[in-house]
């Protein structure tokens, strides 16, 4: 057969190898086993954090063809070429790739792939040495790098422009224009302001946005001389909130009015927290309530109670499922990305305004890609789509 003919130069090596292995396999039996796999390569698995080796091979001539005798491939590993091979696993027939996730970085390994029919096994030559290591760069995510650099570059460029005094237009968002109003209302009514930063921890981008906005709201309450109550459901959020509020009070020259006792930790429990905040609403009677961050099922419980106390409520979240509830129960709602744009609005600092403009350009680029890609796809070209495929995280 043509195949055999092609393999011929390797045959001697193959036989010698098997002899040298000194395994339990009897030579005669070996000869009756399935044809071996070919083109075995073992490489350090790319784009990983180490600890794994990728082995690839071309399947045996008897796998799905020829004698149809291959049941699977046994993977064997050793730290020496000649001996000490141990069994790792068996992968089913038809497979041509295996990732060994059990390697120790810095150690050289040798692999043998044995095609087996259940009784006999025909081993490949050992491949190696191969050493696993962590990669600094994940090539599959080159597109991510480009996107990040592009977006950051845009943001930096616009920040720079804004710093130079170029006026940037910002579309009005009623909910944010109303912050002053809400705090003012609380002041006139002699009641506190309640700020709910959601039930997620500081690893959630919405919580971070919520805390940033808290800083802006705190500046207002400091100026107006109105108490600001912040119940939190995470200790870290409480810490961050205290720091943020303290700094805000300092910024507007009212450090004396800062009271850390009003920024409290309640509980990590979702509904325990909701019950606690509800209790605060009915007892402290805040005249303005802010909900800024990530919310789940407690959103309506909170917003409805707040509404019933007659407070002005301003909500902002990127949780699509909770938005409708906030919209119906609150006076103003920031929808999705408006939450992230909020701090730029409230501060009007060139830094933040510039970044907003940069992000808009990012969106414009995505729109352009969408348009172009879809048109290309309609004509059967998919390279843009392919380019967007990222290596798994």
């Amino acid at each position, binding site marked *: 057969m043509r195949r055999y003919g092609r393999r011929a130069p390797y045959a001697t090596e193959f036989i010698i190898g098997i002899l040298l292995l000194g395994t339990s396999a009897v030579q005669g039996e070996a000869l009756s086993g399935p044809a071996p796999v070919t083109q075995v390569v073992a490489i350090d698995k790319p784009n990983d954090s180490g600890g794994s080796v990728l082995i690839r091979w071309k399947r045996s001539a008897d796998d799905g063809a020829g004698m149809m005798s291959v049941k699977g491939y046994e993977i064997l590993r050793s730290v020496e070429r000649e001996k000490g091979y141990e069994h790792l696993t068996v992968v089913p027939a038809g497979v041509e790739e295996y990732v060994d996730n059990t390697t120790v970085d810095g150690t050289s390994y040798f692999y043998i792939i044995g095609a087996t029919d259940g009784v006999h096994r025909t081993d490949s030559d050992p491949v190696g040495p191969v050493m696993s290591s962590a990669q600094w760069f994940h090539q599959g995510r080159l597109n991510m790098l480009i996107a990040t650099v592009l977006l950051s570059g845009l943001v930096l460029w616009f920040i720079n422009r804004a710093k130079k005094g170029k006026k940037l237009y910002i579309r009005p968002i009623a909910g944010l224009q109303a912050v002053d109003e809400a705090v003012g209302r609380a002041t006139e009514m002699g009641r506190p302001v309640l700020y709910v930063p959601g039930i997620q921890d500081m690893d959630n981008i919405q919580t971070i946005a919520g805390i940033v906005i808290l800083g802006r709201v705190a500046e207002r309450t400091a100026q107006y001389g109105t108490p600001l109550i912040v119940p939190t459901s995470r200790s870290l959020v409480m810490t961050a909130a205290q720091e943020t509020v303290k700094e805000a009070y300092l910024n507007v020259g009212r450090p*004396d*009015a800062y009271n850390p*006792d009003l920024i409290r930790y309640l509980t990590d429990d979702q509904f325990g927290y909701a019950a606690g905040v509800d209790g605060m609403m009915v007892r402290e009677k805040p005249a303005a309530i802010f909900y800024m961050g990530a919310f789940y099922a407690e959103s309506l419980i909170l917003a409805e109670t707040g509404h019933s106390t007659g407070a002005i409520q301003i909500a902002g979240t990127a949780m699509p499922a909770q938005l409708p509830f906030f919209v119906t129960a609150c006076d103003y709602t920031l929808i999705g990305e408006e939450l992230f744009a909020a701090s730029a609005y409230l501060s009007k600092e060139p830094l933040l305004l510039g970044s907003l403009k940069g992000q808009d350009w990012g969106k414009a680029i995505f729109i352009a890609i969408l348009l172009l890609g879809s048109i290309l796809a309609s004509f059967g070209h998919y390279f843009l789509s392919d380019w967007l495929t990222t290596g798994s995280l």
Partner: protein
Amino acid sequence: MAHAYTPGLRITDKTLVRKERRLPLKGEVLTAPGNRVQADTVVARTDLPGGIQTVNIAGILGIPPEDVRRYMVKQEGDGVEEGEVIARSRGFFGLFTAIAKSPVTGHIESVSDVTGQVIIREPSSPVEVDAYVDGEVVEVFENEGCVVQTVGTFIQGIFGIGGESRGELIKVADTPADILTGDEIDGSCRGKVLISGALVTREALDKAAKEGVSGIIVGGIDDRDLMDFLGYEIGVAITGSEEKGITLIITEGFGRMKMTSRTFELLVERVGKRASINGTTQIRAGVIRPEVIIPLDTGPLSDETKKESPGLEIGSPVRIIREPYFGALGKVLTLPSELQEIETEARVRVLEVQLEDGRRVVLPRANVEMIEEGRSVIR
């Protein structure tokens, strides 16, 4: 109406000037009627209440406002030094004590148990009023001030900056059309009042301020230069409180404006004498114009001082105060009583003026001002 309303600036070589010297608040008058005073004699004195500082005791100590009184170390009326502890909270076993310090030296004016704040009043500062002009005290308002009277030359400007000042008159221009560029100003001008011509430049103003010149009397100034000198734009026409260390009196207007020869000559005649000047200007009801007063040694004037200004008449000397012909002098030729249409098509009361160069022009009456020589009492 017997005569048109023609505001005029007074330029008088000898008149009776009465100046009211009042305290901003009630205080003590240090002189009596009949006393001779020098311009720098202090005639009245008072204490201006100090500023206030508030301290948020409730916030600093972390206590409710109604408890503030309990934690006060100092009470209402007590004097405090800057940095002195005025309130102290007692925590558990002396731990967690918080203290509030006074940011200023003064006394505790009030303690509020509603706002939780303490108001500290800074010490009062003395205010003194001097006589401003050399002269005689003729009247005293108890606890408020007095009137100082003098006989002298009195010249009003049209606009000025800077408050009361005084100094010896010196001449830095040869003609009333000269421009004061600054080269003429040196150390010898310190404390003097400079008589100059048609324009003062920004450079000259800066130099004069640097050399400690008391005042400058000049025909005109470019608005741009004035703005640059002050560092801001004058909005409404109230001046006098600028703190540039120099008093500027403009006699004609903005732009390059030859000083009226009469004013110039009168001033030059008084070179070497001490002048009291004030740049304070207020242009609205109750107009205040800047002034130059040069007290003279001669005795009081006779009874003609009470004569009222006669108003605009044929032959009256006038100055034109709006474009075209701005700054030109002339004599009234005719005063037609009926309204006439001018170039803008507005129908206004007009007069005919013969300019100094012989031209005869018809102008709205509102655009001329009389050069008054009345000798009525100047307040």
